[in-house]
């Protein structure tokens, strides 16, 4: 094995190297899961309680008080389907964005492909997603909704779009966060705004005129598709899903590119 150290890092992703570091990736993710469940008194229950309580609150205000039109879907299950993917997206994005600053002690002392950190720190939220999925299954049984076969098949592409989007944004924001510490404070606000331009708490049909907003937001394709597919209500908007997929790939590549371009100075300024 030969290591060559040169001033400017060539702009490329060394897949062989990433493969060599797979155990580190696993242990970084494993650490976050372990620590998370050790630090909290009720551990796993958090993954359930968070979206569940949010669903209850939203049901009261948007379902009852504002009586948002939901194609006849009971508001709780309508909201939860959206929240399931939205929470995974927003938590993973936050985790990835803060990962470099949170792990600066390691970055300053040891070499490894830095890209592992933001991605590994999202893995704990995948676990949350899986756990929360069982709650959705329970709600579906309770409200007598069954998914269509297309809906079940589309879970994988929808998850892929979600992962590509938060990974791309997360890599970009994580790198930016190293240089500009304000990112940490701007991020919650940014995510809050994103929530309102994603059809999580209201259906996509509500704002017909301003549809173009959603075209730029891959998460609207995910939420809309999953709601139609998993609850077998309405038709799947293939056009929207396709655009979402395209944009998520673009976002991911941009994030990876920016991260790759800036990672060599992380240790100097983190």
């Amino acid at each position, binding site marked *: *094995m*030969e*290591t*060559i*150290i*040169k*001033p*400017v*890092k060539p702009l490329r992703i060394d897949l062989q190297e990433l493969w060599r570091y797979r*155990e*580190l990736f696993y*242990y970084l993710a*494993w*650490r976050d899961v*372990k*620590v998370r469940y*050790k*630090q909290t008194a009720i551990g796993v229950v958090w993954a359930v309680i968070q979206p569940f309580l949010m669903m209850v609150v939203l049901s009261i205000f948007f379902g009852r008080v504002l009586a948002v039109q939901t194609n006849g879907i009971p508001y709780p299950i309508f909201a939860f389907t959206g929240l399931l993917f939205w929470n995974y997206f927003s938590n993973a994005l936050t985790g990835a964005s803060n990962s470099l600053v949170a792990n600066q*002690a*390691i*970055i*300053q*002392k*040891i*070499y*490894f492909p830095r890209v592992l950190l933001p991605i590994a720190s999202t893995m704990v939220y995948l676990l949350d997603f899986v756990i929360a999925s069982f709650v959705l299954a329970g709600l579906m049984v309770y409200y007598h909704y069954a998914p269509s076969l297309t809906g079940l098949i589309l879970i994988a592409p929808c998850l892929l779009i979600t992962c590509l989007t938060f990974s791309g944004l997360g890599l970009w924001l994580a790198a930016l966060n*190293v*240089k*500009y*510490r*304000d*990112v940490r404070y*701007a991020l919650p606000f940014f995510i809050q705004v994103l929530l309102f331009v994603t059809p999580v708490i209201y259906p996509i049909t509500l704002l017909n005129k301003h549809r173009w907003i959603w075209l730029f937001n891959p998460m609207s394709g995910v939420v809309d598709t999953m709601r139609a597919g998993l609850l077998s209500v309405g038709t799947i908007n293939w056009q929207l899903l396709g655009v979402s997929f395209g944009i998520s790939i673009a976002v991911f590549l941009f994030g990876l590119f920016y991260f790759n371009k800036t990672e*060599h*100075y992380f*240790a*100097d*300024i*983190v």
Partner: protein
Amino acid sequence: MDNVIEVKGISKQYTINHERLPYHSLRDDLIGLLKKPIRWLHGHQEVQEPFWALKGITFEVKKGEVLGIIGANGAGKSTLLKILSRITYPTTGEIVMQGRVGSLLEVGTGFHPELTGRENIYLNGVILGMTKKEIDAKFDEIVTFAGIERFLDTPVKHYSSGMYVRLAFSVAAHLEPDILIVDEVLAVGDAEFQKKSLGKMEEITKKGGRTILFVSHNMDAVQAICKKSILLEHGSIKMMGDTKDVIHTYLYDKTRREPIKTFEGAGDKKQACLNRITILNDEKNPSTDLSIAKPFYIEVEYTLKSAFSAFVVLKLFSTSLPNQYLFVSWSNDNGYANPSEPGTYRARIKVDPILNTGMYSYLVGIATHTEDYIDYTVQNDIISIQNVEGFPFPVVMHGRQDSFFLYSGHWNITPVTPDL
């Protein structure tokens, strides 16, 4: 031909920005952007000063060689290690290394307080570059060396600092790459554990086959494990060769051991700063070559920028035990009242002739009751105590070479008459 490390003309430039923190705030950058045209009108340039931490470093290391790297603070040792460990990149030059590279710039990198000893061994091991298989194979050895068998499943936040350090070092010591880069990791733990760690390091080097780069302030440790050494000074290699000669050159370098150290009033944000520290001999002349038989003085000139009570702290330590202070003295010891009005002051401490021959380092700082140091500096291996004029009192040398203090005990011997 069997070079495993080839360093060719490595330089590293940092840009020191006097106005800002190393990381930026988006807000400041935006404001800076707006201010730029105004500044330009005023003919005001931003203060950006390039600083070369390393300049044209070239050397080679053969397979199985153990190379020491020494030098004063700021000579570029850490930067060199960081470049060799790929944590940061050089500005110019190239390095080629053959084999698996492992670096230990710190023990316990990535340790998480919530995780148990067992879990941290795996986490830390993988972070350092071991595979799970390797850790499995060495697990018992690691635990035994650290001596923490009973606490393996306790979160390390409940460990004593000694246990924590022992475990961290133990994981690190079982790292077996082809090239090992080590920085100051022996300077942890109590004296006994340090000895054990040094023993382990020697054992590793003697086993052979492994190439090691070793940075330390502990000259005894460098002497013990490195045959060859490099002396860095102001970012360049000043000398390379036999460790004994290199250490001698370093320790007795008069230009490095300037008795007067002046500091630019670093940082306007600080409420107080050190201006100058001077070491004076018995006759009040600046000198760092001092006599074992006579007292010496350390004079600290400092400035208080606002009204508050601050004290000067002096900590003295030896080159051969860098993380253990020989003594600590506060300028308000004995209830002596310190000035608390803004102004510039000069504090002088007299150190009685108690130190044995050898090389000593000092830490001088300004502290308050609540804050450890507002400003401080460490000058390594700067005070040389020599035996030129003879001992201050008639002594028997036997066994005294290894002692830090030269102390004439007050003995009293009386015959014991057996009770009747």
